[in-house]
Each structure stands twice: as C-alpha cells, then as structure tokens.
C-alpha cells in the first residue's frame, strides 16, 4: 500500500473515531443521569401548555415511538445510524420542526463567521509572527508589532463584552447584537443592502475572535521563524545574494509555516468553543445562539443535535487540514509512522 493511501485512510479513520467518541459521550451521559428523557420532554410540554392530558399514556407512547424500551445496545446503534444520516429528531420547543431544519437555518451564519474570522486571524497572526522573527525587519516595525498582540491572552467572550460596551453601547458605531438588520430576514440575499448590513453586524464578533486569536499564531510563527533563520540553506540563500523578499517568503516563511498547519488542526476544537460563546454574546444567529435557545428551553434534542453537528463539523475541518498538509509538505507521506 502506498504511503499516500495509507495516510489518507489513517486520517479518515481519525475522523470517524472522533465523531464516534463525541457521539458516544453525548449518548451515554444523558442515560446515566437520573430521570428519563421522555418524562423530561413531557414536563417540558406541560410547562408550555399548562397541562397535558393522559401524560402517563403519552410517556408510554413516546417511549415506544423513540424506541426507549429497546435494549441499550440497539438504541445506541440506532442513535449512531440516525446521527450519521443527520436525522436528529424533533425539537421539543419548536415541535413540528426537526432539529436538522433548525440547524440548516443557522449553520451558514456560523460557517461564514468561523471561516472568515479563523482565516483572518491565522493569516494575520502568522504574518506578524514571521515579521517578528525575521532579523531584517526594521527595528521600528519590530517594536510596534507586539502591540497588535495586546489582547491575545484575553478570552474571546471577555473581548466581546468589552467591544460591545465600547463600540456598540458607548460609541454606537456598530449594532449591539443580531447578525442582520431588522426586517431583512435570516435567509441570505445577494443584495447590496443585505450584504452591507451583514458585514456591519459581523465586524464586532469578528474582531472579538480575531484580536484574541492572533497572538497564539504569532508566537508560534515567531519561534519557527527564528529556528528557520539558523538553517544552512537560509545562509546560503543570503550568500547567493538573493533579494531579501525572496529569501523571506520562499526560504523562510514557506518552511517555518508548516507546523502551523498542524497547530490549526489541533486547535480547531478551541476555536469552535470560543466562537460559540462569542455568538452567544452577540446573539448572532448561528449555532451558539441556537445552543442557547436549547438550553433556555430545556430542549434536549436540540442541544444534542447542535453538539453532534458541531463536533462533526470540527472533525471535518481537521480532516481537510490534514489532507491538504501533505500537498504542502511532501515529507509527511514518505515517513513511516
């Protein structure tokens, strides 16, 4: 078997292992907890409708409907199978609506914010780090750059609170919450007015993620850049009289950045956790807010569904990074594990 194929299979295996681990924990814990999910659902319905007739019969009917009378292993396998087909069940709060419909509505907002914010912070952080680690960067720039990292040890949600207080409440430059202006609806439209409003709303959440996320990348890149600068090929490149820009990009950054890709894959879980809280702070119409709706209403199927999909999405992002990596660094697929 070629190493490339082996590598791909290994990574795909990791993806399924991650999703399986996550799904299993989500499945087991609620069943260890005292109480019965169906009874909880009925209580939930009662708290909304005031009184539910024949609640005992309803519990029995629902138990049969959800297969809760089956043996545990059967339930478990069914849960895994349904989850993989994205059948996440009905939302308790918005009953006729299924969880997957709710997620389909909010997921694009999260993905847009996540992709842009992560991209910008990884790119910006690495650029700053590379310049900080590069000996030939002008002294003035080298002294100014660390200023950009002032907020890098602040948790994103704290940054979000601070930004809301200063730029939304104090200066009133940006909206306090929501992802889009009133009356525009959450279905994406390619009109100037809609896009403008969406960007206007996204600036502060983006900033909260960007300003706090950059520092980690910058420090990692700075270290790698300093190590790379000591390599023989760097000295040779300079001795050959190559232009500094070429040495910086083609010889320095290109080699120093490789471990950063692995770092992106490893920190994906943290990035997603951070963003969930930032979305919650801004009531941004993404998964974080959906999760909060689930929590506020005791909507267990919704919470479970959102968690599962996000675990899966994170694992998928990691898989993508892992699969792109050998294209950037061919040594990976040659080495024996």
């Amino acid at each position, binding site marked *: 078997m070629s190493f490339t194929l082996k590598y791909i299979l290994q990574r795909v295996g*990791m993806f399924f*292992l*991650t999703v399986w*681990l*996550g799904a299993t*924990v*989500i499945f087991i*814990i*609620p069943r260890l*907890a005292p*109480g019965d999910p169906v009874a909880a659902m009925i209580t939930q319905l009662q708290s909304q409708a005031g009184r539910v007739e024949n609640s005992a019969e309803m519990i029995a009917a629902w138990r049969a409907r959800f297969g809760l009378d089956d043996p545990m292993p059967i339930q478990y396998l069914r849960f895994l199978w349904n989850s993989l087909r994205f059948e996440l069940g009905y939302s308790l709060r918005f009953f006729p609506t299924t969880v997957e419909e709710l997620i389909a509505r909010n997921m694009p907002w999260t993905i847009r914010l996540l992709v842009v914010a992560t991209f910008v912070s990884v790119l910006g952080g690495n650029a700053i780090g590379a310049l900080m680690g590069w000996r030939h960067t002008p002294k003035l720039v080298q002294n100014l750059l660390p200023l950009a990292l002032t907020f890098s*040890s602040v*948790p994103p*949600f*704290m940054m979000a*609170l601070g930004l*809301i*207080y200063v730029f939304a*409440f104090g200066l009133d430059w940006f909206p*306090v919450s929501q992802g889009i202006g009133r009356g525009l609806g959450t279905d994406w439209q390619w009109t100037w007015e809609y896009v403008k409003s969406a960007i206007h709303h996204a600036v502060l959440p983006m900033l909260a993620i960007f300003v706090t996320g950059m520092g980690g990348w910058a420090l990692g890149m700075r270290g790698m850049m300093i190590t790379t600068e000591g390599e023989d090929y760097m000295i040779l490149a300079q001795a050959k009289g190559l232009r500094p820009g070429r040495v910086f990009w083609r010889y320095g950054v290109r080699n120093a950045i490789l471990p950063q890709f692995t770092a992106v*894959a*490893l920190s*994906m*879980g*943290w990035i*997603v*956790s951070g963003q*969930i*809280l930032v979305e*919650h*702070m801004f009531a941004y119409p993404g998964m974080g807010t959906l*999760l*909060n709706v*689930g*929590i*506020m209403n*005791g909507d*267990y199927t919704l*919470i*479970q569904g*959102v*968690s599962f999909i*996000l*675990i899966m999405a*994170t*694992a998928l992002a*990691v898989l993508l990074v892992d699969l792109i990596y050998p294209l950037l660094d061919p040594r990976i697929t040659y080495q024996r594990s």
Partner: protein
Amino acid sequence: MAMTTAEGRPAARRAAGISLWDYPWLNPKLLIGATIVVLIILMGFLGRFVWDITLAQAASSPLNLPPFWVQDSIPAGDPAHPLGTDNMGRDMLALIITGLPSSLRVGFIAAGVGMFVGVVLGFTSGFLGGWVDNVIRTVTDAALTIPQLLVLVTLAAYIRPTVTVMALLLAAFAWRGPTRLIRAQALSMRERGYVRMARLSASSTLSIILVEMMPNLLPYLAASLAGNISGNILAATGLELLGLGPTRVPTLGMTIYYSIRASAVLRGMWWWWGFPILALVVIFTSFFLMAIGLDEIANPRLRQLQVKEE
C-alpha cells in the same frame, strides 16, 4: 559577554555576584503568582470575617447601587456597598469574595484530576510504547479535536451541576493536554543515559518512572498544572455564561451570566460584569505568571541571569 548562565558552589556564586534570590525556585514571577493565589485561597477561609458574605444572597441589599465613588447618578453610590449591588439586591463585593474561591476550586479539582490521569496515561504511553502507545495516542488525538464546551453543555444540561460536579465534568476533558505533553517528555527521557542505567540495574518500571523520571519532570508538570487550572476556570466560565453553572453558590461566571441576562451592558451597569471579569483577570494573570516562572525553571535557557562582569 554581558550575560552568562551562572552555576557553581555557594562560594563561587557569591564571588560572581549571585545572591540567594538567584536560586531557581525563587523565581520572582512564580512567587508573585503564587502569592496572589494563596491570598485568594485565604480569602475563601477568612473573607467571611472581613466582609459580611450573607450579602451575597438575593434581596439582602438595595437594588442597582453603583460603586461608592459614583455620586452623580440616581441612586448614588453607598459606602456600605463599596462595589455596588446588582438587580437582585446582592452586594458585589460579597459576590466576589464568595465567587473567587469557588471559581478557583473548580479549576484546582478539574486540573488536578486531569493531571493525575494525564501522568498515568502519558507515562504508560511514552514508556511502554508498542500498541499501548498507539491506542492511547490515537484516542488522545481524537479527543483533542472534540470541542469540549459542546459535550460539556450536553452533560450540564442534564445534570444541574454543583461546584464539585462541574469540576469533575471538566476533568473529563482536562487529561488530554497533560497526556500529550507527558508522553512526549517520557519518550525523549526514556533514552537518556540515567534511565538506561536504571534499566540495566534491573529497576522496576514503576521505580524508574517514580524515582528517575518524575523528579526531572516536576517543573514541567507544575507549569502544565498552572496552565491547566486557568484553562479549566476559563472552560467553567464558558459553561456558566450559557447559564449551566452551579446555582446555589455564587461563582464569577454565574455572576457575569446573570448580569448579561439582565442586559447590564445596554443599561450601562458596567460594575455588574466589570468586577467579576476583573477578578477573573487577576486569577488568569497570577496563574500565567506562575506558568512562565515554572517554565523558566524547567528550561534554564529562558532563565538568563544577569551577571555583571567586573
């Protein structure tokens, strides 16, 4: 050379102008950080004698008072409630005094349990190698990519946690980092001369790990523990911000949660969230200082003693 790393016997040290304070474990960053943490712990025991902590109960104080120095608002600040009160009539100072130690406790328990599991798994994996190593490494890597907040939310939604239960929930994820770190260290240490020597003299695996390797890893473990404590306090705060924290005892995260639920930001009630955040910042900073200090102890290259050349 202006900077040299100083080593040697006491007499030689004195001659080189090195004082007692250059002893590695007396690192100023570590000391400052540790002092603040000890003060916070003491506050948990002694705070009740300094300030009336029953004021942390709802409806024990007037509502919505600003801090005492804000005099141009209605109602004006009252020195009886120096940091103001919230919309449930709870005194902010009492909330901080009771919240700070319980937030710290969550961090200590979660990181402690996580560290213990990490040490066991990391050493097993790194020292034994083979298929055991493969299994532990693969599962750790897979678990690392799971966003812990999401799983914790699912768990906390079912089990309304107390402070201790929440700490144990967090511990279910706190072993991943330490396992990875210790495995890497154990792998590199396994081949060192003194470990080989111990193996040649037929020491048991357990004694090699405990007697030969552990003492060398101590600063690493301590630095990692300090980092993990603040990491777990942060994770706990995340959970609490979603309203899933303990409801009986005030913690810093729950105080911020209630303030956000009462739209404190939009009402300009900055002291509702400002003081708990400030308290969290103090915790994070002190553990950050400790972690850096311990890191300098573990990596002597970071510790550049400034020795004057005369």
